């Protein structure tokens, strides 16, 4: 092995490195540089002092969150919702990808893909409005249907227990197309010789799926899940806020860290306090991803992220 200095590597891979540059710059600028702003979480921010000149105030900014008595509830909600989203969404996406790959002709596949992809582009604001017109007590589609069938109307917006299910279904509906395309791409890249060999050996469709397709999807699935786990303590604000809004009756089962912090701080504009909440989420996210990665590495070191 010859001398492998950093300079030699750069020279050797210059095209590849060049292609990498935009992504590295992006993360440097938007993920690493702002990290210095974490100091805000420990400061009493004022405009004259700015980010670095403002006076320190210890853990004061964290007080509102932990004093509220809601810290545990919203953290648990955030974690559980995201866990459910990860499991349900990935399972459905894999299922849909396999179905499309196995069962559909090229035309049908293209059209189905497009239709499934559409919800991904609908903004949460619009989804929120659609949901309101579906679930509304007085004139919502669901209650009109129930009424026509002679059934009692459902008071969805005042019943917290319906909401975990609603949110999981809506999230799955919206993410389905996007994930399916990723998994479909992974399936298409599986070596077709394996399928031919399996067919010659007399394997039926289900055996092929179980023995070839699914094992080959593991790497993709694990990477996608690990990436998602890093964000497990960040609630999708757009989704929760637009679906639930400021409806106090639903908070017990729908409040996530992001909506809680938003509600608490919109009136006070306290930058330090929101930085503190963000810092708390980052710490939790960091811990979970390290743990998850450690677990994956123990089990199969090739599939870990790092």
């Amino acid at each position, binding site marked *: 092995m010859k001398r492998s200095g950093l300079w030699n590597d750069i020279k050797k891979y210059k095209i590849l490195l060049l292609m990498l540059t935009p992504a590295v710059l992006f993360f440097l600028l938007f993920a690493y540089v702002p990290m210095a702003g974490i100091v805000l979480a420990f400061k009493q921010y004022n405009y004259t002092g700015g980010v670095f000149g403002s006076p320190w105030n210890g853990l004061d900014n964290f007080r*509102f969150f932990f004093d509220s008595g809601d810290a545990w509830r919203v953290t648990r909600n955030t974690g559980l919702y995201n866990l459910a989203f990860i499991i349900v969404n990935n399972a459905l996406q894999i299922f849909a990808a396999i179905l499309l790959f196995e069962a559909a002709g090229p035309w049908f596949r293209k059209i189905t893909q497009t239709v499934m992809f559409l919800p991904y582009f609908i903004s949460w604001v619009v989804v929120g409005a659609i949901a309101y017109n579906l679930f509304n007590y007085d004139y919502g589609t669901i209650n009109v249907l129930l009424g026509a069938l002679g059934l009692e109307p459902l008071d969805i917006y005042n019943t917290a227990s319906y909401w975990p299910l609603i949110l999981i279904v809506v999230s799955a509906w919206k993410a389905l197309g996007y994930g399916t395309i990723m998994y479909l791409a992974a399936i298409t890249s599986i070596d077709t010789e394996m399928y031919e060999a399996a067919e010659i050996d007399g394997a039926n469709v289900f055996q092929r799926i179980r023995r070839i397709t699914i094992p080959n999807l593991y790497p993709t699935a694990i990477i996608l899940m690990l990436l998602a786990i890093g964000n497990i303590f960040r609630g999708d604000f757009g989704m929760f806020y637009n679906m639930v809004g400021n409806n106090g009756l639903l908070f017990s089962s729908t409040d996530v860290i992001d909506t809680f912090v938003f509600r608490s701080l919109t009136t006070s504009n306290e930058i330090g306090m929101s930085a503190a909440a963000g810092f708390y989420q980052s710490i939790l996210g960091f811990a979970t991803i390290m743990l998850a990665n450690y677990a994956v590495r123990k089990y199969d070191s090739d599939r870990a992220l790092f």
Partner: protein
Amino acid sequence: MKQNKNFMLLLAVICVLVAVLSACGGGSGPNANQAKEPASPGNTGASEASEGAVDISQEATLKLLMIGSKPTDYDEVFGELNRLLKEKMNATVETEFLDWADWTQKYPLKFAANEDFDIAYTANWAFYNDQVLKGGFLELTDEMLQQYAPKTWEALPEAAWEQAKVNGKLYMVPNNNQEVTDKVVLVREDLRKKYNLDPVNSPETYAAYLKAIAAGEKGISPFGAKPADGWKWHELDQILLEQQNEWNLVDYNFPLGYKLDDPSGKVFNVYDTPEFTQLIEYYKDLADQGAWSKNIVSNKNDVYQDIKAGKISSYAQNLGTISSNVGEIRRDKPEMEVNVADLTPDKKKIGAISTQNGMSIHAISKQPERSLMLIDLLQNDKEIHDLTMYGIAGKHYEPVGDDKYNPGPSYANYNLSGFSVWGWNSLLNRTDASYPEEGTKMLEEWQSKVHHFPLESFVFDDTKVKNEVANVGNVMLRYAIPLEYGLIKDLEKGQADLIKQLQAAGLDVIQQELQSQIDAFLAQ
């Protein structure tokens, strides 16, 4: 192992980069501080101001900082304005607009960064006290005002000047517009007559009106509320809790108020009163009879549009808005008979304090004299006032007499709702010609009996209790709103829960801090 090494190298590089970058950032902190020093309230203008007559021989350019979006026809209207200003005071203006979307972030930064501008829009809801305390505005002395803004000095009542003072010193030319903050409700007169009901003028007659519609009209929701945007009160609270009991809430972010006729200004938790207990019974009764949609707290529709479409029969707002709505409905939908109704006609009315809108001069402005002259013209020169408020006659508006107007063909491209021209509201303001007479009459009547009280211009400084305010607000959304809209079955338990949660969130701490600030304010 190799993989790990690379990772460590990457980490090291990142650490170095972050350290370097943050050091660069850190350097600007102290510098900014130094630059800020000269801007402290000690003013440069006052000494010059007392000397001699106004010298306008040199052409001046004044920079204006406004809140709101730039109107489409800004160039045309302000081009005309600059022509007039050149004649009257040998000056031109340039305007910078801070869009509604992010003005709360940008506005303080403009001051913090010591940017070059002369005049800024300000208001009690737009950092006035904050910026005064931080040294952002120039102190205005009586002499300066008499000399450079004589018309405004004459026209604006003494009380308005007084209300704009912070710790005894004036930093704002407040607008001259005697608004009343009390709220009213919009009522469908055609429906009221259909059910043979008494005219709506009290909480009881209003309840009867809502219940009759709930019982008789399919497809009309009697009462509507604006889409939930974090507002922490029932939309009728201002009328039925504050106006009806003659209380005043200090800040809508927490439930502490005082009685208007209490000279000691003792604050109390409004949720912990027999009046509130009665009120939630009143609300519960209405809710149970279908006076509002079960989903009112999740509403996403514009309530006024729903009223216009005939889906909702009433809502609460301030007098100006409801009156404009009534005017518009009468013009566009004459078959729908609507009117303004005051549910607390005999109670004390509270006037909007003058700092609701106003213009201030930047502490580091080099031309405070010219700036005052400009504010004087904007507020009290008929030609310039009309132009800046309503645009160009015949294009953006049609003047009707001296004090009314009709929207012109290009109304949408320049009108007084786009940006903060209200900073120079004055007696020269025109009203929309479709504005109903009832509204004007009611306002005149209210104005004649506006109640003035010592705490009128008190503003709470929440710096010490920010954590508690944040948490109390959350409790109100979660426990008070459902209780008030009658969504909780057991009222007694609901109220007890609400009070208990508020204590846990630190309402007592806010109350103590507030009381001590009020005591200090009254002692002055």
